[in-house]
């Protein structure tokens, strides 16, 4: 494909013409992406735009929608207490779990990278397994069971620290911290694998060169050689973990119920689910999802800017 069949004068063309020219030139490539593109448009792009439109209506899925202008957004920010709670919780989760899981992924990957390949493969599996199995966190339901026979309750009662079982996921002060711990445990996912791969991909010769150039410790090696080499991987992993943290909610639902007691740990995902599910107000739910979407885009841009400073 790289061979040009005809020479054209680039400067004679408008931008659109040039694009069209390139598209013709690489038509086989475009042809091959068609199946994906069709699915991508049908199930991602169009719904996203459709939801923006729906956000301006009062659609309930079953009856003809009415156009209500910015009413949904006004209600959302000014007259919806739950939204504010959900937004606060979501941001709190994202701030703790997003960077937390990201840093953890990288640091653990960095440690593991030093191990013997066979041991490394095993340790990787151990760390990756929780997220591999998807709903492995339900093990915490057993560990933190509210029953007197739950593991933690059992231990605490045996040691005499408590005399009645604690209902971990129904007690407001425990829900939030427990959910954060669980999500951190679950967070060594694809980003973690990417980090390991990225570390493997760093050219060993560069370390020698850096040593010659006067690098004296591992931290400098990390900052000036390893990280700049892994920028793309870091980016990938960061986008995954931070946007993932905003979409957080599944763990809370399965551990503490939906909604959790007193709305502790109630996130935008729950709020979204509540309006599209229980209350069947799709217009409003779309408005929520649109806001969530904007937040995620904002977070992405912030990550981009932050990572561009790596190695400088």
């Amino acid at each position, binding site marked *: 494909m790289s061979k040009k069949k005809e020479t054209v004068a680039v400067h004679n063309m408008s931008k659109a013409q040039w694009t069209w020219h390139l598209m013709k030139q690489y038509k086989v490539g475009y042809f091959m992406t068609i199946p994906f593109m069709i699915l991508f448009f049908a199930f991602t792009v169009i719904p996203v735009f459709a939801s923006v439109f729906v956000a301006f209506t009062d659609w309930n899925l079953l009856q003809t929608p009415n156009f209500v202008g910015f009413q949904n957004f006004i209600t959302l920010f000014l007259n919806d207490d739950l939204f504010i709670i959900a937004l606060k919780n979501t941001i709190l989760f994202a701030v703790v779990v997003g960077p937390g899981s990201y840093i953890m992924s990288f640091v653990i990957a960095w440690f593991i990278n030093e191990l013997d390949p066979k041991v490394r493969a095993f340790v990787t599996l151990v760390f990756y397994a929780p997220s591999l199995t998807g709903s492995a966190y339900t093990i915490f339901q057993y560990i933190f069971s509210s029953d007197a026979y739950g593991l933690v309750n059992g231990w605490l009662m045996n040691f005499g620290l408590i005399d009645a*079982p604690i209902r971990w996921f129904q007690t407001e002060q425990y829900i939030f911290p427990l959910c954060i711990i669980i999500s951190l445990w679950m967070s060594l996912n694809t980003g973690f694998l990417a980090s390991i791969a990225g570390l493997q991909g760093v050219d060993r010769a560069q370390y020698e060169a850096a040593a010659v150039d006067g690098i004296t410790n591992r931290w400098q090696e990390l900052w000036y050689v390893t990280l700049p080499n892994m920028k793309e991987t870091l980016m990938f992993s960061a986008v995954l973990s931070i946007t993932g943290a905003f979409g957080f909610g599944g763990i809370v639902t399965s551990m503490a119920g939906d909604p959790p007691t007193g709305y502790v740990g109630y996130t935008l995902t729950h709020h979204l689910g509540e309006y599209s599910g229980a209350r069947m107000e799709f217009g409003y739910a779309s408005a929520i999802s649109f806001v969530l979407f904007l937040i995620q885009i904002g977070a992405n841009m912030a990550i981009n800017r932050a990572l561009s400073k790596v190695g400088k």
Partner: protein
Amino acid sequence: MKEKTKKLIALIMAAVMLIGSGLTVGAAKAGDTENDDLKDIIDSNETLQTMTESMSLITYEAYKSKYGYIEDKDKTDADWGDFETTVDGVDYDAENTNAEVEVKEINGVEALVTPAEGSVAWKFDIPETGWYTVTFEYSAVDESKADIERLFRLNGIIPYSEARYMSMQRTWVYEYAGDTREDAFVPDVIGNELAPEMHTELTWETYTMKDFYGHYTKPLEFYVNEGEAIVSLQGVRESVAIASVKIHSVAKERTYKDVLDEYEEKGYKPAEGEAYMIEAELPESSSSVMIYPIYDLSSAITSPQHTTLIKRNTIGGDKWVSPGKWIRYEFKCEATGLYDIVTRYRQDAVNGMYTSRSIKINGEYPFEEAKNLRFDYNADWQVAPLTDGYDTFQFYFEKGETYVIELEVTLGNMAEIIRRVDQIIDNLNDDYMAILKLTGNDPDVNRDYGLSRIMPDVIVNLGGQALALESAVDYISEMNGIKSDNTATLEQAAVLVERMATDEAEIAANLGSLKEWISSLGTWMTNVSSQFVELDYIMIQPTGSELPQANASGWQAFIYEMQKFFASFYADYNSIGTESTEAGALSVWTSSGRDQAQIIKNLINEGFAKETGAAVELKLTAGGVLLQSILAGVGPDVSIDSQSPMEMAIRGAIVPLNKFDTFDEVMSRFSDSAKVPITLYGETYAVPTGQVPYFMFCRNDILSQLGLSVPETWDDLMSMVPVLQFNNMEIGMAQDFSLFLYQQGGSYWRDEGMANNFDSTLALDCFEYMCNMFTQYSLPVNFDGTNRFKTGEMPVLISGLDLYNTLQVFAPEISGLWGFYEIPGTLNEETGEVDHSCISFISGVVMPRGCANEELAWDFLDWYSDKDYQVDYANEMVALLGPSGKQALSNIEAMDELTWTESEYKTLQKVFSDTFAIEYFPGDYFVTRYVGFAFNSATTQGADPSDELLSYVSDINKEITRKRKEFDLMIDDEWSAIKDYTGFTTTTEWREFWASERGTDVNDNTAIRDIEDAEYTFRNWMEEHNVTVDNHQKWVRESNNGTTTLSYKEWTEQ
């Protein structure tokens, strides 16, 4: 060392035996007097007391040792009796009979028809004291599906517990479409064979007293004194005709060796002729409507087989596992001589063990060993002549004669082992409970409880059980030739029990494991009692012929699998029955399991489709797609088991059903409460099918030991708590304060759902009462109820009926020790009555918007909710899932015909007639949510329950108002304004006023809803009279300040 311990245990055992036999005699003596008191207990309701008494019936073993029974192997020729005396059914003993009997001729035999109520007696003259059994000649008298059940009494008392309960089976005859195998079954549109119809036939059968569970393979015998003997049957379920009653000795049976000798003597030779094949799926009759032809797709040579279509090619399997169920075949032979009976069968269910059948030829066991035919375990199909594991049997058949062979499920040699393990479980349970009472369920490992001092007998008994388990293992491995995971359960339990018996210090540490192992033993018993055999064909072939092929050869299997693989590209496996492309078919969606869908489909084909001639397309869909499909306009005509239909109904997506002619008739099948949650403002949107109330499950054995009785009211229940807690036990309570609220006449809602009613004193009191149960009485909030009920830690548990099903399967070791009752009630101080009403959760069938043929769809709903369908479905579920598949139906009449026992049925009837349900109103999800929040705060944060609930009242109301605005319903503020304007206090008054004013019906919803198409609604009225929320609030403020003294009406007019 081990030898020494064993010797020690043996020594102790010997001592125990001595004490034990003394105890048995003592117990038997006590039993004597108790039995006299038992006479009438069954007549009265099954109260706890009668339960306890009937539990104290002695066992058959105890009975035998009490009256000196000689086991068969110890009998001399003189011990075998040959006495026999028969009384005709019609010559009953009128003096001791209180049932309304009548004489009727059935199949040319004059017989006495005994109804389902009352008892009938027959008098006998016994010349010599001895051991006898009783045989009845009976026939069904109608075509009902339920088994015939009776209680047996000899001389007015139930002699021992095994002889108490009789279940006489009906004869079910198969109706085939044609005479040959090819056209025996009616195919559906695609060509899949449908199961044949079956009907009960009134035939004369005999019933010889036997153990209901099949734990004894011989007839039950009774020690009858010389002189007069009265046999009586008390009705439990269904009528039955009795032709004769016979008291007779159990005769010694011929052994196979005797039979062989006879063959030789008479010079019988192997027959010279062709083998005769009986397709097992084509029996003449069987004892259960659930034993219908099934299909096997796994083997290429199962006869007949097809690559894509379902051929009904086998019978039995999991539908033919409980002792006493039989299947009959008829055949004729071409030549006279000796034959082998060869079966192609599969027994892949009970690993490492064999299952058993008995065979009767023309109604007689040909020899003793025929009672214990052995079907070995193998994952594949097997072909083998009938055998008891030692001999393969030959049978003599004559040319041209018609022979009837009957195969019946029996426990065979396993019966003895199962009996022993049953006894071991009972003993271990007693030991466990004894230890539990001292140590609690979480014993301190490091503490010396002094068990050997306090309860030496328990420890000695444990040792005895360990030995008993070991001997059971030896016996099984000897019988089966191998050890398997099935013997491993017993072995491991034995090791644990032995350890606990020999080292007292191990008891506390292993108490939890003991509990687990008792349960495993129970499960083991259920597993090995289930006598699975799936039959493909029965081959009557001349002795000495070669056996047919058991499994497909590699090549045959390969061809078959390849054909199936290629067929999978075009065959339609999804639509069940009728073709999915058929235009005008009624489309019905269900999201239940595939088995359930298959049952529904079969019943539709047999019932609705036949009756109406309409095509029905049943689709199995994932849950939660109904909404989307209605939205897309491709929804079904009828949706079975749909979730939250009301949320869709209020948005106009469900067709209201009141408009159909037979609506009232259909609804009369259900209790009044079943309608409540599916009705909104006078419109009903679903036909109820399932109704799930709470029940109170009680461990009767524990309660009677502690001297407690089944609690009548909540206060009774709470007064049990100290006693239970003292014994380290607790109560499992449902967290549902509606139970208290509705029993006292309260409600969640006020003013037709305009606001919640939680700020009423009654609601707050009830909520506080419930929270106190969990805080002050420290009832557990989270618990695994089933497990704790099973172990006895939680002898009282409020739970749904699913617990019943779970316990049937999961806890066989405590079967008979528990019962279920109405939930406790609230005493009404004025009337002195106790209100037991209980919340119930309703599921229903709906007709979504866009239904193409509403009349037909309504006919379907009518048929679906009808008694006949519901009974058939429930019975099929029991056949599919076993006793764990029992259903609680919302159709009240249908409940009567299910397999519940009389006492269970009585409880169910009481509970179902006394249910309530919580009304649906927009915003109801907020109600349950905030009640949950308040409960959690009260129980985890120690907050005051009333304060917590009150703090949420306005939040809930806010959401209700928001939702009501969405649907243009009258909101609470508008209602306050109207109330103040008109002076009405209830919405009923307002509706009446509206009806008289507007000349409409009282149920006209324009009174509370601003319906879009209506020309005049309450909003117009408010506008006309200048009644608005704003000016009402202004007036309220002003009148509170004292600025105005005018009434609201005067104020607005001003």
